[in-house]
């Protein structure tokens, strides 16, 4: 039968081993050789866009990379999606929402009116474009323009 001493050894040993593996995997997955975040493409604009994203707690309503509050749309592929919807004018649409002085309320759900400057709005768009280029192991396709269903099937559903 297991003794208390053995139980303690299991706890301490198991914790140490798994934590060391965890650190090793962290170092590996953040190393340049396997980087899939296009880290090299992070510009000053992207960094400013991220700061604006955080200082306004956009994640408190939206999700990005699948993380957030599920109250407003996922924004990982927002530029592509709105480009498709508005004939290539996605960036302009995003900017006008961010610069709007009145609350944007699609389908009645209100967004805070941030009244950003042109520069600020451009920075946020740059941030979205950088996010949109990350290799997300397949998640980008799930939330992107080409969802997992063919246009033909969509027609059938609509009918």
């Amino acid at each position: 039968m297991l003794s208390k001493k053995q139980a303690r050894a299991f706890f301490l040993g198991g914790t140490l081993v798994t934590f060391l593996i965890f650190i090793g995997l962290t170092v590996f997955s953040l190393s340049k050789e396997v980087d899939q975040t296009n880290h090299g493409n992070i510009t000053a604009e992207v960094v400013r866009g991220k700061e604006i994203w955080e200082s306004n707690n956009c994640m408190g309503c939206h999700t990005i990379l699948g993380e957030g509050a599920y109250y407003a749309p996922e924004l990982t592929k927002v530029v592509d999606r709105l480009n498709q919807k508005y004939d290539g004018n996605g960036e302009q649409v995003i900017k006008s929402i961010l610069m709007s002085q009145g609350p944007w309320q699609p389908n009645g759900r209100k967004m805070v009116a941030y009244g950003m400057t042109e520069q600020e709005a451009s920075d946020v768009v740059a941030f979205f474009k950088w996010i949109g280029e990350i290799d997300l192991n397949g998640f980008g396709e799930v939330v992107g323009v080409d969802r997992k269903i063919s246009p033909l099937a969509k027609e059938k559903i609509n009918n």
Partner: protein
Amino acid sequence: MKYKSQKVAYWFFALSMLLLVLQITYGFIMGFARIGFDNLHDFIPFNTARAVHTNLLVVWLLSGFMGAAYYIIPEEAQKELVSVKLAYVQLISLAIVGVIAVVGYHFNYWEGRKFLEIPRPLDYLVVVNVLLFLGLILTTLFTSKRKTTTALVLSMGLLFAALLYLPGMLPFDSQVTDSFFRWWVVHLWVEGVWELIMGGILSFLLIKLTGVDREVIEKWLYVIVGLTFLSGVLGTGHHYYYIGVNKIWLVVGGIFSALEPLAFLAMALFAVNMYRKGEKKHPNKLALYWTLGSAIVSFVGAGLLGFAHTLPQTNLYTHGTLVTAMHGHLAFWGAYAMIVLAIISYSLPNMTGRKLYESASGRAAFWLSNIGMIGMTVAFGVAGVAQVYLERKFGMEFMAVQKEISIHFVVLILCATMFTTGIVLYIIDFYKHGKPTDEALELNN
């Protein structure tokens, strides 16, 4: 109550109750916003309500854990707390930091990182506060000759929780790296070191309530926290599947996340078995309800419902949907909220000398809050699964889907009302106990 200084725990628990009420209030604001009644938008937009709701959860649970430590450590170490005055200073400073943070969220003063919204200057105050708390607890424990496993596991959990707050304060230019290390805090807290705290409190309660030999209980405590770390540390990988890091996490996270329910299952079996083995029938039935309830509900909420969406194949579609909210609500409730309510139910009669061990309102509080929370979980689950199919599989637009599923939020609000009724009854019982008194010391001895 065996030591006068244990009374300080009462005020931490009282702060917890106050913050819990506020947390629920902001939950209702979000629930109503989801069905179209967002009349408070100009003052409390959704992102404010959300930040307040989740941060108050963290703070009231931490306040509950701290109260639990102030109650348990003197009793386990068999000596008074080293400084009661400093414990009150710590309580007041915790409350002040919490109030500044919550008020700040209403004026766009935050960091905007999920669960870690507290702005940087306040982060430093949190660190000072927690260092003071740890100083008091660890000095009390290590100046005593008696260092029990229960006290060591609890203190270890609290110490690691403090250390793991630090990676969340590192600045990063990349959203991916930022998110990566944010999970070091959030995941390794809730699926790692907080479980040490939960295990320590659970062990203390089982020793007191069942009368089973301490050596037996503490041996299994080691096994359970061992299983927790064995699965939970590498289980962090389930947050890394789709945020822009290497595919290796799909394998590692998938395997170890699948093992995570085992730790919770072990905890549930452990609690139930110790109860069955126990010959001592402690009269505090309500504390027993909450203790066993916590072990069982955490298995369902954190273990089973977590596993329901941590396989990479499933998570590809559920990631970033209301399915996460389903799991989150029952997991936090079972594992952490209920264990805090359990230690409060156990310690309150001891600190105040009023032995309100059994009451119809106390039982109603337990059942109404639990059934209400299960109802809320089901409502989130149905909404989440519908969202996955409509939005992710059929490609419908986000807001079109939200309209389709809004009816489930009506159900959510109804169940939340039942849950709140239970919590109100619990708080009335809390109030009925009156304030802690030194006379309770004599009554017990």
